[in-house]
């Protein structure tokens, strides 16, 4: 029997930019990429969700502050509360923090400059659905492109929730944090863009390790349900 193709949804808000690359990357990694419009009050049948990067609703007020109240975000929160796998990338990370699915907040880069370059990040945990193809301590090269990526953790953040750390901190994030997960480990947010790094021709394919991990974990959930 051929292994089933897990269905991975990608939300598109007004102002999302990286939804197409995320859809393309999921399909390239053998997932079924499912576009989801921001007005959807209910998600289609999905095995994982990606909240992509961009400038949802113009990033007005604070990044992610308006997108947090969109119907699709409410549906993503329900999906996550039921244990569903949710990956937030860049603006998606900001939205998940504003929505309270992830701890902390993302502030203006310490340099006040938009930063657009490849960075190196260290994998701190390889036991998550998002990192199982990686090994702890491994360095990944991934692009960042953001003006508001300075992560501020809440005072009581469990250090075990830090999943990725910058080796060359591009934005002043506290403790070099580049990615964090929720306590249950089914929601991950990160500022670097794995979906832009799935083909060596484009500079790095390290992002494929994270996204293929997600597709694998989503496939396991399909198999477990059969």
């Amino acid at each position, binding site marked *: 029997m051929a292994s089933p193709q897990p269905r991975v949804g990608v939300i598109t808000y007004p102002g999302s930019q990286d939804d197409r690359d995320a859809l393309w990357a999921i399909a390239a990694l053998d997932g079924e990429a499912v576009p989801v419009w921001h007005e959807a009050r209910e998600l289609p049948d999905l095995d994982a969700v990606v909240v992509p990067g961009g400038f949802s609703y113009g990033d007005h*007020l*604070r990044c992610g*502050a308006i997108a947090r109240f969109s119907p699709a975000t409410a549906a993503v929160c329900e999906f996550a509360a039921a244990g569903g796998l949710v990956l937030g990338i860049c603006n998606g990370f900001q939205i998940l923090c504003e929505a309270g699915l992830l701890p902390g*907040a993302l*502030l203006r*880069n*310490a340099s*006040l400059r938009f930063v657009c370059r490849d960075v190196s990040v260290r994998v701190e945990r390889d036991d998550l659905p998002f990192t199982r193809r990686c090994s702890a301590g491994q360095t990944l090269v991934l692009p960042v492109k953001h003006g508001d990526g300075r992560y*501020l953790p809440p005072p009581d953040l469990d250090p075990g929730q830090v999943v990725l750390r910058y080796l060359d901190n591009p934005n002043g994030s506290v403790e070099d944090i580049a990615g964090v997960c929720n306590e249950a480990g089914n929601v991950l947010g990160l500022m670097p863009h794995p979906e832009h790094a799935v083909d060596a021709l484009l500079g790095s394919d390290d992002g494929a390790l994270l996204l293929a991990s997600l597709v694998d974990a989503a496939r396991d959930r399909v198999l477990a349900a059969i």
Partner: protein
Amino acid sequence: MLVRPKAGILDPQGEAVGSALGHLGFDVRDARVGKVIDLELEAADEAAARAEVEQMCERLLANPLIESYEVEIVG
């Protein structure tokens, strides 16, 4: 209402403003940059207006992890 970066949180925008003022010859010890949000609304009285605006702050207008806010009622 006034929204300010919470005390203790790095405010690079405030630092840039403080340093620019320094270049102009002003002696500024510290500068922090926040924002003003003006709202027009109908309410039975001042207390009701304040209660409503405070809810708006908690839910949307300020992020309590990084910002503090102050409500000022005019009119």
